[in-house]
């Protein structure tokens, strides 16, 4: 109900929009199944996003998650347990203050490394599961409540550098849960090499106060259909990395041929505990995992995600089979004025 009120208020505030600046409604709807250690769970999920510009400098945007999880009952019982979740993922106002500075206020995704901000939406991620290190540096909840500054520091034909810095207050609110923390990230992008290297830092300022360090490298050779993405993150009590390779061929009629729509994937990840203090969401023991995926990009913004993963740890080795169907939608909140 509160979410509906927020959305209605946003749309009302932006009714006087220009021809190209009509508020949009986007997001994804998906149905996932996951078989882990012989138990199959089902997850229908809906992630709407709204973005509403106000004037020429302000943008209000928000994303929410609504899902229903069905998992088999334990202790030999038949049937399924199910749980419901609905919540705001983030709700932020972006004020474009100058060509190099945007000020963000509200509830925002913690800008640590790349996964949380760029790859976590259900219609973007190649695998159903996020990486094992996803909670490292993102302060567990993945969102902050406070302020953020960000922008392009330098943009030249041969390179560009951007920056992000934030401070988050502590919040126990059900919808805007966050921890007191601050952090920063900077990226160097070399467009000719299609190479991005970024450094992240975060500090948790409550409870077990600790520093987090992140390094990410993305490489997408030109016209090869290949994407190599990687992240390394280190906290005071654990560390880990993931490397994901994603390929689409153009050799049989381009990306939109029936062959070109296949997208084989491979992701390797490892986590290492430095001690037994559990404060960061990583597995309790050293874990290795290899994910083999094959996605298919259907027409009309639909994707089929399939993957098999083998996960190794000292106490348990498991197979994880996952399949899913994702639909991405994107449309105006209302019919815009004709130009």
């Amino acid at each position, binding site marked *: 109900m509160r979410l509906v009120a927020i959305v209605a208020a946003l749309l009302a505030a932006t009714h006087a929009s220009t021809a190209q600046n009509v508020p949009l409604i986007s997001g994804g709807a998906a149905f996932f199944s996951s078989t882990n250690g012989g138990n199959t769970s089902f997850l229908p999920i809906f992630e709407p996003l709204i*973005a509403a510009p106000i004037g020429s400098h302000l943008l209000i945007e928000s994303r929410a998650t609504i899902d229903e999880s069905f998992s088999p009952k334990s202790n030999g019982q038949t049937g399924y347990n199910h749980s419901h979740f609905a919540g705001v993922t983030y709700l932020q106002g972006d004020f474009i203050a100058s060509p190099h500075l945007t000020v963000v206020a509200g509830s925002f995704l913690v800008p640590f490394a790349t996964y949380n901000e760029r790859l976590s939406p259900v219609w973007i991620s190649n695998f159903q599961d996020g990486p094992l290190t996803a909670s490292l540096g993102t302060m567990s909840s993945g969102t902050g409540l406070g302020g953020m500054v960000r922008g392009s520091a330098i943009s030249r034909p041969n390179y560009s550098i951007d920056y992000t810095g934030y401070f988050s207050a502590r919040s126990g609110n059900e919808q805007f849960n966050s921890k007191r923390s601050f952090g920063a990230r900077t990226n160097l992008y070399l467009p000719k090499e299609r190479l991005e290297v970024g450094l992240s830092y975060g500090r948790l300022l409550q409870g077990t106060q600790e520093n987090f360090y992140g390094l990410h490298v993305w490489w997408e050779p030109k016209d090869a259909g290949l994407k190599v993405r990687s992240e390394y993150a280190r906290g005071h009590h654990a560390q880990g990395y993931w490397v994901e390779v994603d390929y689409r061929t153009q050799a049989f009629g381009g990306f939109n041929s029936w062959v070109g729509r296949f997208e084989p994937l491979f992701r390797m990840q490892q986590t290492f505990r430095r001690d037994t203090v559990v404060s960061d969401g990583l597995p309790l023991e050293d874990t290795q995992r290899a994910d083999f995926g094959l996605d298919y990009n259907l027409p009309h913004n639909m994707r089929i995600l399939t993957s098999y993963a083998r996960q190794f740890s000292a106490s348990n080795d498991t197979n994880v089979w996952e399949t899913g169907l994702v639909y991405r939608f994107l449309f105006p909140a209302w019919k815009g004025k004709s130009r």
Partner: protein
Amino acid sequence: MRQQHLLALSLALAALSVPVLSATQPQSQPPAKTTTKKHADPAPQPPDEGERVFVRNCSRCHATPEGFSPSISGTIVRHMRVRANLSQHDEQALLRFLNP
């Protein structure tokens, strides 16, 4: 031992990907088209600046939406400016690309 197996598997996959990559022919991915675009150019043109901005900042993370109303192109670009930390110059080039 298990880690060694995983490492060997990773290396084998990387090695296998090399001939596959070398066999592909360079060809750029089709850019996003708004629903107002009626006709494709008759002859191949070098990518304009807006297309380069699109490829470098948008399609690096997500698949290209198959089509959207031109009435939201400005909103999309503003969202991308914040999310991808675009410069003002790149923002304007991207807006021109989405609204030729």
